[in-house]
């Protein structure tokens, strides 16, 4: 953490516990306590009262409580946060013990639960977006401006690789392929980027470019295999990409301990460090971890959006995704498109991999250097509704959860695993809009069509 440790995080009531709750507040719901501690009541809570208003405002409110993409996403977040709060409470023996006498003194149970949950979520927010103490510290001169920007810097650092893997999965989805192999493609990408980073003696600038491209090439190779197997042999890409993920992981663990790769001064599984000439430059000085990877990520988002919506290949890709038979009849080579989709998806995932070793997250290969970015990428793509700019936003949210989760772990003692739970829950609710609609009694949206099914079996 680049934050100066603050003594006992201050009163949690002063700021909203999380983004979603902040949004809830903005909507006029003031009883935050209920949202966090009592899922049943918050679930049954009616929406903003539909008072007779001028048409524009009326329309706004109507849409607010209709099952459109925005509302469903927001409510999924709320639901996930509520379930997360329940998990926190039932796993804390002290708080749980207050529930044994809840009938005689309900205030104990409610207060202790509220304290636990609100502090945890407040730390999640402070670690990812804005920490008021750092801000007042900066005004008082107690700490520099870096401390104020530290949470955002962390969020962006975690988000950058997720943008790439999310785009990788989303691009394949649009072409009708389910790329579960972003993890493996990122793994090969990270290997190639790191090897180029410490084996090639190149001048600064060029070295970085070569290393990044090497990562992309690695991902492309690993995407090409399931692509050509799908196109030529009809082998299902879901099976092959799952299997290739593990092949890549084992290859990485083998490679790290080979002569010339392993750090000669170490006996454990860690490679040599990437040369500084091949590292992505940091954007806000050495104290903040945010690096140029996030800029590349925005660039990649723009490129994928252009590819999908403006290029011939993008049109072919979407046509194949919508209906391969019709596309073939129209003269589009489905074989070629499948291979290209997987190669492009691999390139994107490989770039995500290069981010993990050329950025500030790590500078050497270890067995866990890729973390979970490939699997998280699947969630990010689904959350972003498989649209490029949506993926970018989703990756930012997931990056924020990661960054905030770190602070939550060190300040509130809530395991980082809670973030995994939250992420999975959000996507479960997103994937089943009918469920969210039923829970909150949403009206059917007028225009928005919420997709529930993306891929087709084996």
């Amino acid at each position, binding site marked *: 953490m680049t934050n100066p440790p603050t003594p006992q995080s201050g009163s949690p009531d002063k700021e909203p516990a999380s983004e979603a709750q902040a949004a809830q507040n903005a909507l006029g719901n003031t009883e935050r306590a209920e949202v966090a501690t009592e899922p049943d009541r918050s679930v049954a809570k009616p929406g903003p009262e539909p008072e007779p208003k001028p048409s524009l405002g009326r329309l706004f409110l109507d849409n607010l409580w209709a099952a459109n993409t925005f509302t469903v996403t927001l409510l999924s977040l709320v639901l996930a946060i509520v379930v997360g709060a329940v998990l926190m409470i039932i796993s804390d023996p002290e708080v749980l013990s207050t529930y044994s006498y809840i009938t005689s003194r309900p205030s104990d149970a409610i207060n202790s639960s509220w304290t636990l949950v609100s502090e945890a979520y407040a730390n999640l927010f402070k670690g990812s977006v804005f920490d008021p103490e750092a801000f007042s510290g900066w005004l008082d001169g107690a700490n520099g401006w870096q401390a104020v920007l530290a949470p955002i810097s962390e969020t962006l650092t975690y988000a950058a690789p997720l943008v790439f893997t999310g785009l990788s999965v989303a691009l394949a989805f649009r072409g009708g392929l389910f790329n579960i192999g972003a993890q493996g493609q990122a793994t090969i990408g990270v290997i190639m980027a790191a090897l180029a980073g410490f084996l090639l003696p190149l001048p600064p600038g060029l070295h970085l470019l070569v290393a990044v491209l090497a990562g992309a090439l690695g991902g492309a190779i690993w995407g090409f295999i399931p692509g050509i197997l799908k196109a030529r*042999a009809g082998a299902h890409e879901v099976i092959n990409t799952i299997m290739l993920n593990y092949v890549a992981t084992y290859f990485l663990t083998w490679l790290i301990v080979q002569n010339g790769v392993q750090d000669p001064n170490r006996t454990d599984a860690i490679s040599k460090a990437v040369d500084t000439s091949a590292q992505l430059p940091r954007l806000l000085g050495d104290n903040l971890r945010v690096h140029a990877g996030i800029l590349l990520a925005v660039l990649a988002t723009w490129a994928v959006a252009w590819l999908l919506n403006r290029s011939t290949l993008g049109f072919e890709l979407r046509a194949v995704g919508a209906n391969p038979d019709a596309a073939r009849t129209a003269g589009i080579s489905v074989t070629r498109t499948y291979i290209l989709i997987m190669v492009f998806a691999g390139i994107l995932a490989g770039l995500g991999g290069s981010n993990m070793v050329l950025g500030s997250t790590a500078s050497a290969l270890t067995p866990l250097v890729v973390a979970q970015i490939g699997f998280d990428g699947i969630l990010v793509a689904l959350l972003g509704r498989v649209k490029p700019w949506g993926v970018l936003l989703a990756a930012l949210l997931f990056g924020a959860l990661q960054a905030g989760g770190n602070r939550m772990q060190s300040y509130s003692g809530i395991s980082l*695993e809670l973030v995994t739970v939250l992420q999975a829950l959000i996507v479960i609710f997103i994937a089943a809009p009918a*469920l969210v609609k039923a829970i909150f009694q949403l009206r059917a949206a007028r225009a928005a069509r919420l997709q529930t*099914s993306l891929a087709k079996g084996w």
Partner: protein
Amino acid sequence: MSTMAVPDIAVAPVDEGFWTRSRKVGLTLLALGLLSAVLFGALATDQQARFTLSDDAAGAALEINGTIGAILFGIITIAAGAALLAGVPKRWFLPVLGVGLVAFVLSFLCWQVSAAPAGQNFMPLVNIIRGTFILALPLIFGALAGVLCERSGVVNVAIEGQLLMGAFSGALFGSISGSVWVGLVAAAIGGAFISLLLAVFAIRYLVDQVVMGIVLNLLAVGVTGFLYERLMQTDAAKYNSAPRFSNWEIPLLKDIPVLGPALFRGNIFLYLGLLLVLVIHIGLFRTRWGLRTRSVGEHPIAADTLGVKVLRVRYRNVLLAGVVAGIGGASYTLALYSFTKNMIGGKGFIALAALIFGRWNPTGALLAALFFGFADQLATYLGAINSVIPSQFLAMLPYLATILAVAGLVGRVRAPAADGKPYIKG
């Protein structure tokens, strides 16, 4: 548009000509045989390669000179390949292929065992067989869970999560109650819980089943990891010290040489797993339940027309799958280890591979699981004798084999026709 020379549609050619699948496999086998006879033969030493019929170096053993063995078994592989290339009756294809592959493995082992450091030129067969079954056990349970699910038309990528949840709740409730049986039931319920989520979201809310499976795996990792850190790490004595099933010796059978000590002195999970393979195989192909399950997985509309409750069959099978996988998870925490974070570590996906490699068939899944378990055990053994073969490459074997299988190189694998397609009545 593009004008590529390749045909756009990927279908198996109807007229295969001279190069039938059998001949292609024969050619591959021939090449493998040549490789083993020449390369393994050259690398093997003149040491005796001993395959002892016990846990250690002592006792009776099958012995063969390393070089001679490697070459001899290589020649057998060549012969099998040549036979396939020359053309054998169809019913002989699998036996001949089996002989060829086993001979190839034996040739490899002759080289490895003879080239081991002095004093270690032996391979304890009892140890190897027992280890194979122990390592294959979660795969067997997981693959059976996959069979139950997918035969009724629901893709089960959540095997990993079901195993993990089973292992966790088995450990948690086994520790709290102090009873292995409570733990076992809790494990089954834990697995079924993940299954229930899969069933509700896949069948009721029509969420894509592969997506749901992947997300459920992450959810299981998250929930168990979170509760592990909150409960088990803070108070391991209370929450993570489940009692363990002891080994049960089966009278008479335990005295069979090699197989007796390896297989019939195991714990309940070993017997249960093998029994389940039998039960599910018979159930699937010989009972009314099996017929209905298969019909729902192949052609739900036809099944519905005939009065089979498609959704009910699917719900029931997916839940059963969770129970089976949950028990499989308990085979870790109620017999071998205490719970650790993410302790299944990808076994669920190998189980998925075994399911596919075994062609969605319980017996096939068992054989595939044993093959993968053997590869795993072999990696451990080779590590112990300082082999030049990196263990990671042996660990890749199941995955590579599965890729070859689905790519049609080892024969066509076909999923149930309605696998992964939600059924909407109407």
